[in-house]
């Protein structure tokens, strides 16, 4: 097979090879074959092209995870534009900010989300075209919307655009330390080089069934969507609600005969703790892939005791590189092991190096920052030239090295060992959080005078977020009101677990917030 350098070419190829196989399935709901999915995405392409969407544009996908959101993504790619997936569970103001930040030309959304989105976009004086999927339709809502649009005005057939592989394919927004999300720009080459690496390592086939647990605005979705599509395999979508129901989820994994599972470790821990896994047969499962946060070894053992057969692989990397290192957990684990697993060796489509604060490569065994270069790394952050100038080192031959901010030590046998972060970015249930974004959100509360947020490791709950607040007039605010306020301002996963009230924040001698002192209090 010729390796075509765009992500949507993977769908075209599988539609030719496996037209009648199931491409995507919603548990308990609809399924779609490769042929039908390909045809549906052609219709999305035609409609968007008719709206003037073309190569170089961005289009938002603001739809709960579904066959329709998968079809929207491929339809957008077929116009040559890049897609911007936005969290349907996040506050509408944050979503509108994101979509407006990269000036999307159009947004696919649903009737349920439409009015709040329109109101927020109006505040930003943004007016992208909106394609709204109806609810309560016996058909696929996306197909129903396209038919309704066709009745109003036919969209002439357009050709699928195959832009050069260095063209922008998608933008994933991640937490930003200044309080605003930042857009990580990934090219078709970044996506396809990673997908081909996955093929090499996991040898998938059309007989595999992949899970899609992570939301589409999360970088785990790149493996979830494109690896099965490339191989003609079946993709089982785990929607937002099902993903949080361990009992129902366990049943779906077993009954759908999922063979490749990919999620953050906390979900595996949820499943082991609350999913009553002993009830079901998981013999189809051949790989359990995990990423996004450290998997505490005791929790890992509990999962492995319930699911002993599959191979377990730790995939590591920030959104900016997708996955850059990987480590397969040995089938037999040293019973005395308590230290977290290594993050492992550099993926073959990338190069890794470890440098000190001056940028010099350290000797093996010394701690330093992990830098990554190669086809899989991002182009940069959307519209942040200053940040982009800092985040890459450029070799004399033009090679760009991305500063991951991860502190690691190289071990000859196990590859890299993760030691921590250079900055205040933390992971909570796999979600990446800049603590500064939470602080910026809480600081907008009219009664809050000062705020500082820290993350505390908790053996049961993983990472817990603790906010320290001082209020004007020393008043004590209601916790329930503060939680509600946080829910309105921030994505759910950023809402602090606890709030503590103090008269004033501790300061260092240089008048910076003394986070170490706060951690000592926590």
């Amino acid at each position, binding site marked *: 097979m010729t390796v075509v350098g765009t992500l949507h070419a993977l769908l075209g190829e599988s539609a030719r090879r496996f037209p009648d196989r199931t491409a995507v399935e919603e548990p308990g709901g609809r399924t779609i074959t490769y042929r039908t999915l390909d045809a549906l995405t052609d219709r999305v392409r035609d409609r968007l092209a008719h709206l003037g969407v073309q190569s170089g544009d961005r289009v938002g996908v603001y739809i709960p995870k579904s066959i329709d959101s998968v079809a929207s993504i491929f339809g957008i790619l077929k116009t040559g534009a890049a897609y911007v997936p936005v969290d349907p569970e996040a506050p509408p103001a944050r979503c509108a900010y994101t979509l407006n930040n990269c000036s999307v030309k159009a947004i696919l959304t649903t009737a349920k989300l439409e009015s709040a989105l329109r109101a927020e976009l109006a505040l930003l004086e943004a007016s992208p075209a909106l394609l709204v999927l109806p609810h309560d339709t016996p058909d696929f809502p996306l197909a129903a919307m396209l038919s309704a649009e066709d009745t109003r005005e036919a969209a002439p057939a357009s050709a699928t655009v195959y832009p050069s592989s260095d063209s922008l394919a998608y933008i994933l927004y991640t937490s930003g330390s200044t309080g605003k999300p930042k857009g990580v720009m990934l090219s078709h080459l970044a996506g396809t080089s990673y997908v081909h690496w996955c093929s090499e390592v996991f040898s998938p086939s059309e007989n595999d069934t992949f899970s899609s647990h992570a939301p589409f605005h999360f970088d785990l979705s790149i493996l979830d969507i494109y690896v099965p599509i490339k191989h003609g395999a079946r993709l089982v979508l785990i929607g937002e*609600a099902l993903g*949080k*129901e*361990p*009992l*129902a989820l366990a*049943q779906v994994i077993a009954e759908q005969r999922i063979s490749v599972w990919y999620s953050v470790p*906390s979900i595996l821990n*949820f499943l082991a*703790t*609350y999913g009553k896994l002993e009830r079901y047969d998981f013999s189809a499962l051949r790989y359990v892939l995990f990423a996004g946060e450290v998997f505490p070894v005791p929790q890992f053992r509990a999962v492995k005791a319930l699911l002993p057969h599959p191979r377990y692989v730790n995939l590591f990397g920030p959104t900016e590189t997708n996955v850059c290192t990987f480590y397969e957990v040995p089938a037999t684990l040293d019973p005395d092991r308590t230290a977290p697993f290594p993050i492992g060796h550099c993926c073959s489509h990338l190069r890794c190096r470890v440098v000190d604060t001056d940028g010099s490569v350290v000797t093996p065994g010394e701690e330093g920052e992990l830098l990554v270069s190669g086809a899989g790394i991002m182009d940069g952050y959307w519209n942040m030239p200053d940040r982009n100038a800092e985040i890459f080192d450029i070799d004399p031959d033009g090679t760009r090295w991305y500063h991951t901010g991860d502190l690691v030590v190289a071990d000859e046998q196990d590859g890299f060992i993760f030691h921590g972060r250079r900055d205040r970015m933390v992971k909570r*249930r796999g979600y990446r959080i800049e603590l500064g974004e939470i602080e910026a959100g809480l600081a907008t509360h009219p009664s809050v005078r000062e705020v500082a947020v820290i993350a505390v490791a908790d053996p049961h*709950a993983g990472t817990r977020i603790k906010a320290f607040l001082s209020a004007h007039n020393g008043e004590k605010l*209601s*916790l*329930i*009101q503060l*939680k*509600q306020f*946080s*829910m309105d301002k921030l994505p*759910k996963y950023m*809402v602090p677990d*606890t709030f503590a009230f103090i008269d004033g924040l501790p300061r260092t001698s240089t008048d910076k917030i003394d986070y170490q002192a706060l951690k000592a209090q926590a």
Partner: protein
Amino acid sequence: MEDIIRIVKEFILDKFLPGEDPAALTPSTQLMSSGILDSLATLDLVSFLEERFKIELEARETDVSRMGTLNDIAQLVQPKLPAGK
């Protein structure tokens, strides 16, 4: 009913809202959309309900429509209790 509400209220205040004024948590306070209970906390609450009241909850009973407030929870738990309690 009132007993269930009182017991669950105590659990939530103790576990997820330490230091909150008990009067602020009413039988109709939204527990999930307000951020008081996230998905992990909800699972903890389900485990607590199952153990404390010796009942079994099915997956589809643990969503926001059945457990959105203390009132909802009491209505979910009450019919499952052995008769006479």
